[in-house]
């Protein structure tokens, strides 16, 4: 039987209460929401936080709304809720593509968007999705709220811009109509972490690509994105040739690590292949 080490537990009643609890328990406290990354790590004793601050009662963090030209996704939104959200998936089908292949329905019922991002796992799917969408993370701490572009959010594997004593509140995505988006993932089995995955967001004006967003999962892409490939696509006519070249550029700039999911050359190949496929599907959806 896997049993965690001893820890304190406190249930937050509001964001301000959560922040005061974080302050009280100090840097060895962790926020728990869905618990689907943290609890297994605690049971394996890879993580031994001194306290858990439970934020499951913070319903103000559970909203999915379009507000002031932005799609707002609260940090406590469950994967299943995002998957089922017509406003979110209607604007950006990339959410549906990605959420369908995140873990399994049981995990999706409980796991949260904010938890996924804050875990900062290099194989986590939503990080690439929000990177492709150029989202903004809203973080609150003792000094109030601040905005962090998602491409500055991840500072390295398992490291994010959320500092001790802070809480991720929500993600904001510019609700630009007329975009196409898609996410493509290769996994060894349904529910597995990605061997590699790619997300793409495209908008086209006057027959050329106005703006491209490319997110990459599990291939060692800095900040989960591919700015060189995006730049290559901007102003270019969309099509197979451009997408393949964008894939090639994206692959060139990532640095995948070999593991039992695959060797580095294969993951690099997938970065190219899946980028092209995601771009193709995104284009079809415009």
């Amino acid at each position, binding site marked *: *039987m896997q*049993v965690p080490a001893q820890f304190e537990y406190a249930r937050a009643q509001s964001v301000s209460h959560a922040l005061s609890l974080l302050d009280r328990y100090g840097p060895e406290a962790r926020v728990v929401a869905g618990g689907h990354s943290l609890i297994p790590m605690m049971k394996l004793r890879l993580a031994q936080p001194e306290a858990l601050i439970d934020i499951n009662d913070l319903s103000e963090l559970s909203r999915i709304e379009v507000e002031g030209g932005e799609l707002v996704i609260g940090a406590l939104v469950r994967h299943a809720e995002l998957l089922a959200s017509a406003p979110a998936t209607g604007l950006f089908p990339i959410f549906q593509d990605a959420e369908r292949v995140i873990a399994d329905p049981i995990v999706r019922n409980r796991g949260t968007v904010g938890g996924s991002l804050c875990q900062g796992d290099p194989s986590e799917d939503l990080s690439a999705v929000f990177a492709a969408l150029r989202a903004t993370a809203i973080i609150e701490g003792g000094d109030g709220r601040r905005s962090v572009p998602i491409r500055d959010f991840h500072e390295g594997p398992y490291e994010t811009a959320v500092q001790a004593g802070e809480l991720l509140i929500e993600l904001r995505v510019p609700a630009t109509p007329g975009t196409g988006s898609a996410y493509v993932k290769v996994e*060894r089995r*349904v529910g597995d*972490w990605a061997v590699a995955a790619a997300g793409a967001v495209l908008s086209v004006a006057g027959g050329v690509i106005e703006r491209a967003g490319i997110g990459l999962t599990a291939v060692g892409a800095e900040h989960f994105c591919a700015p060189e490939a995006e730049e290559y696509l901007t102003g270019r006519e969309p099509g197979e040739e451009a997408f393949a070249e964008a894939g090639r550029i994206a692959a060139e700039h990532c640095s995948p690590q070999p593991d*039992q999911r695959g*060797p580095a050359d294969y993951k690099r190949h997938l970065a190219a292949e899946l980028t092209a496929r995601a771009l193709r599907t995104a284009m079809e959806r415009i």
Partner: protein
Amino acid sequence: MSFGRMHRKEDARFIRGRGNYVDDVRLPGMLHGAILRSPHAHARILSIDTSAAEAHPKVRAVITGQTLAGLNLAWMPTLSNDVQAVLATDKVRFQGQEVAFVVAEDAYSARDALELIEVDYEPLDAVVDARRALDEDSPVIRDDLEGRTSNRIFDWEAGDRERTDAIFAGAEVTINQDMIYPRVHPAPLETCGAVADFDKVTGKLTVWCPTQAPHAHRTLYALVAGLPEHKIRVISPDIGGGFGGKVGIYPGYVCAIVGSIVTGRPVKWMEDRSENLMATAFARDYHMSGEVAATRDGVIQAIRVKVLADHGAFNGTAQPTKFPAGFFHVFTGSYDLQAAHCEVTGVYTNKAPGGVAYACSFRVTEAVYLVERLIDVLAAELGLDPAELRLRNLLKPDQFPYTSPTGWEYDSGDYIKTMRMAMDIAGYDKLRAEQADKRARGELMGIGISFFTEAVGAGPRKHMDILGLGMADGAELRVHPTGKAVLRVSCQSQGQGHETTFAQIVGHELGIPADDVEVVHGDTDQTPFGLGTYGSRSTPVSGAATAIVARKVRERARLVAAAMLECSPDDLDWQIDESAEGRAGSWAVRGDPASRKSMQEIALAAHSALELPDGVEGHLDAVTVYNPPNLTYPFGAYICVVDVDPGTGQVKVRRFVAVDDCGVRINPMIVEGQIHGGLADGVGMALMQVMAFDEEGNHLGASFMDYLLPTSMECPSWELGETVTPSPHHPLGAKGVGESATVGSPPAVVNAVVDALAPYGIRHADMPLTPANVWRVIQGDPFRTDLAIP
């Protein structure tokens, strides 16, 4: 209908969450144990300091190898007459090996205290690659064994070398192929564990433990621990899957027993998932090199095989003593060969011991994979359709009973009929036409065939024993006065539905409803001796014992009926009336069928004041021991259809047709369930499962994030068919089916994927066929699937 579809009697408790597993056992005053395991694959133990753990306020005992050495229990025999460390004293020999055992008031404290034990290790080079185990400079793992100077465990051969070599020398066509059947794990959802309760007053030891072989465990505890066998009771409660992984005795069981003896209180030990994957019995790990000699027109003449078998750090394979490679020499498969020969070398490596678990019927899995892959390689060489090549070489019905070139006597078979049925269900010719169209468009579609013959139901005691215990099984049957029966059997269900199937057998033989039969199993104080459930032996052995003991009772009932009807027993005929209510049996006077006594009437009379003739005992019960005259040989034809994405290497199993012939089916629903499960297992092994190790011997598959179980999403809707060729020597004509699909399906999937990749000139790819593996195979640059991916 006594044989036929019937809902499983045991499911009423399982679907209500009312099963009783070992972790549900809670005894008053029970303590909890936890095992400290080695982080190293190979290291010398310099010192162990348990003082801080002992000082933990909730710890009641800390047991090390030294403690056990004082009781002469530091080492225990394995199922292959080797010894295995219970807790390491000198060295650790695989990552996850048991080093110390903590007993505490609760599971949390036991686990906390593990972190307080300090072990000083001197790391040694690890032997990870079986192919390097016999190198001159390879470290000797088993320096505990006197005179051991290498990692060689055994060399073993079967078949006729000279005859085989002569055929190869003159053959028109020969092919050869190296292949790995990687190390996999049975991964039952219920991990292993035990509750041990030693009563100091009575001297009785009771062990609850999910064992597939409770009686063998009891005898081994008696032999190893020196406890009197009549003072040991092994209770195997409901089991959440075994697949062979719960046959042997694990160090944790012994530790729980010692913990209870030392503390005087019951001790529970439950391993976690990672412990289960790292330290309990693995399966396969066979490195095989096979050759086929054939004529140019596709007549297979001989097969020659060399195997390197990785047995891990202790030789713990559960197989009959005479057969160190199990039944691997059944590798000639379903084909009519002139000669065959195999050589198997077993080696020690720094990996967990075990070696036959996971539904393999004693290495038949490896044998079937080998021959079915070789046939496809030969078909590619000859430019023949693999179905056609099989049809040309399958044994014909008139060849049975058939003695194989390696000495097996196949009991019965009608292979071509089964093969044709599978091809018909699949629409084989249409599939090939579709494949041709797809290939013309550059799409990758593959069709894979496997035809397997298994050797199960071990076995005749004169040839087969485990640690000297013959592989025969007992049964006891009592019919109570109201005609309700209790059957006691030595085998133990891990989900196979014995409580239903065996009740159906009794019902069939006695002419009473299966619902009127209670099956008692899994408790050594309640059941007769026998070797248990593995190797698909329950129905072939215990099922036969059940039929025979029921027939004995029926004959006793005849004597009672004769007394009731005041006639000679010889004047009675057994009569069965089938009706909507079920099957009713009675003894009736020949020529006067109205004069009859039902089994219920006879049962009451047998316990009544009725005057019985001299020599006729009252009551209605019997015992028997069944020693099978031969193994049974189930077979089947499987066809798998896959689509492969050349850009990503992803494999999609689109269809799977399985036609099984396991002889007479007692409960077809249960049989089909077993086949469904085995097919899913096979898809898992073929596509995603492997326990690989890095250079230091770190286990790279020690959680379900790393070691993948297939889900319904990877499985197509299985398309089943059946043929029935009864076993001529089994009292019911049944053959056993538990492992058939696990044995037969991996080669079908692999053959399908390799067939899909044929446009690239590919003839082989090792399991598991993960996307990365398939893509690299397409690039012509495959990696070793059993090692860390570089």
